[in-house]
């Protein structure tokens, strides 16, 4: 038997391409998305090593210098290096989006489980409230929240998190309602298992698969909403580095032709959102039974 690292790597690689052959293009979409996400995560984690300048340094170079030379992506009107701001901005956007998605999923899943399982008046009322929030334009709700709270990481995270709770709620509640009718749940109830145990041991594991897919799409959406909020000047104070805010600032210099101020933050936002969306799409295709192929 071969135990060498190269053989191990070869086996991993063949497993990899094997999945690709089995699932076709969806696997490669998933891989592409995952690679983008990992790249940005590394950028965020090693930001201080990658960025040549401090993102707040207002004397990094000449004002409004075009990309090239020492400043890979140019400088802005406050003489800050654009590349450094992008590298450090990834921390803000990833942090807020992932945290918001976690909060959303925790609230939405627990509410969905409880509501679907208990039924009755509580379920009806909660469903009505959730449906109303779900149908309302998410961004406008987020704007309202962010406007009411003081600018800060917590405020913007909460503003983004609130919008997605109904999505998880609806999904989990629907599944809970159908799983509730299964025989093994009835059996568990018959032997006297408390509701909490039933929810946790029987129903929750069944809803996880779809929830993971929704989670990745959620993070993608959260990135877009966070960037939109900071672009509008809400949610975060100017002292925190963020791509959306850079876009808003760069907008002023568009007529005079300084294109690099808005191009690069926008590309990064799109790419990151794309990464999560592709991951979600790939996961959705693969986790679904192949029999339901369109």
């Amino acid at each position, binding site marked *: 038997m071969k135990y060498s690292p190269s053989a191990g790597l070869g086996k991993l690689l063949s497993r990899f391409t094997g999945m690709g052959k089995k699932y076709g*293009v969806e696997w490669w979409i998933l891989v592409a998305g995952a690679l983008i996400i990992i790249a940005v995560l590394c950028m965020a984690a090693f930001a201080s090593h990658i960025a040549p300048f401090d993102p707040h340094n207002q004397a990094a170079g000449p004002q409004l210098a075009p990309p090239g030379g020492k400043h890979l992506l140019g400088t802005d009107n406050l003489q800050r290096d654009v590349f450094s701001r992008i590298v450090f901005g990834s921390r803000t956007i990833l942090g807020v989006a992932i945290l918001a998605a976690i909060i959303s999923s925790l609230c939405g899943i627990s509410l969905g489980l409880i509501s679907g399982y208990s039924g009755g008046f509580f379920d009806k009322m909660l469903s*009505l*409230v959730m*449906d*109303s*929030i779900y*149908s*309302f*334009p*998410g*961004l*406008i709700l987020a*704007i*309202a*929240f962010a*406007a*009411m*709270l*003081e600018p800060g990481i917590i405020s913007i995270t909460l503003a983004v998190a609130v919008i997605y709770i109904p999505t998880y709620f609806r999904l989990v509640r629907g599944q809970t309602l159908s799983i509730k009718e299964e025989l093994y749940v009835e059996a568990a109830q018959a032997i006297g298992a408390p509701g909490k145990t039933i929810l946790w041991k029987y129903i929750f594991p069944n809803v996880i698969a779809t929830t993971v897919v929704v989670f990745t799409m959620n993070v*993608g959406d959260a990135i*877009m909403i966070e*960037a*939109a909020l900071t*672009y*509008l*000047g*809400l949610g975060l104070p100017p002292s925190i580095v963020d791509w959306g805010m850079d*876009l808003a600032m760069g*907008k002023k210099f*568009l*007529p005079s*032709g300084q*294109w690099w101020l*808005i*191009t690069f933050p*926008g590309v990064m*936002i*799109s*790419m990151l*959102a*794309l990464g999560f*969306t*592709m991951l979600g*799409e790939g996961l959705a295709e693969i986790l679904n039974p192949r029999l339901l192929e*369109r």
Partner: protein
Amino acid sequence: MLFILLSIVFVVIRIMPGDPVSSMLGGHAPDSVIEQKKEELGLNRPLIVQYGDYLLQICRLDLGNSMIFNERVIDSIKMKVPATIELTFFGMLITLILGILLGVYAADKRRSPQDYAIRLYGIVIYCIPVYWLGLMLQMIFGVWLDVLPVAGRTGARVFVSMFEKTGFYILDTILVRDFEALKDVLIHLILPSFTLGLTLSGIFIRLTRANMLDVLKADYILAAEARGIRHNRVVYKHALLNAFVPILTMMGLQVALLMAGAVLTETTFSWPGMGRLLLERIYLRDYPTIQGVIVIFAMIVALVSLVVDIVYALVDPRVRY
């Protein structure tokens, strides 16, 4: 459902930390002045009384008075609604045309390179932020090529007061027969509506494609092909007409996204609509107007859902309430 939305708006605005009255008075007013202002605005009454008042006012469409400017909220909103409706209408038009055509084509040529390319386009365009696409289009067409205007509804040489009647500039200019102004208004509409329409087309393509795939599997499609009807006619006439009803419902559900996109597009293109009004008043901390605009948005959402339900019931003979 509208009732719940309105209640949520009320709760959100009241519950949030931060005192609107003191910030309105500049933050340094003495307590007695703040109390007096609160009394004036009726903010000292019990919450349930304020809630009842709020609901009654909405029934009469009286959204209160602006805290900052000396005008009624409903008046300031009334001026901006046609602008937003014009923008969203044309944006929706572009979304529909692009989305349906590309979606049907992708469904028709399933699992071909064109199908994958269109699906990829759909995903990518959805991930591009609306405002960034707007800025890029402004850069390309407004700055580099300099063929299209980048801001506002009309140009500098057009005097709006000469034709403004309904607020819908396209209608107004036609009514007054001022075709120069009409051309100007249309040219100003191009970039914003394209920005809005392109971004939403991604989702529409995916939904249309999914619906079309379901329809194309049906027996009557196979029968039509077997009878010798040309393939294109089968797809674009018979299949599309049958898939149209779910597409229509989807259109209604996209209105929420359309409005969200409109808010961002209006800021990017300095379009004088409801979205920009909302943001302006947020910066000014004019809470009655903010509340009023959100109430109007909620009403629009509820209205569109109702219309979609009705149209669905009318069009599909199998659906009966």
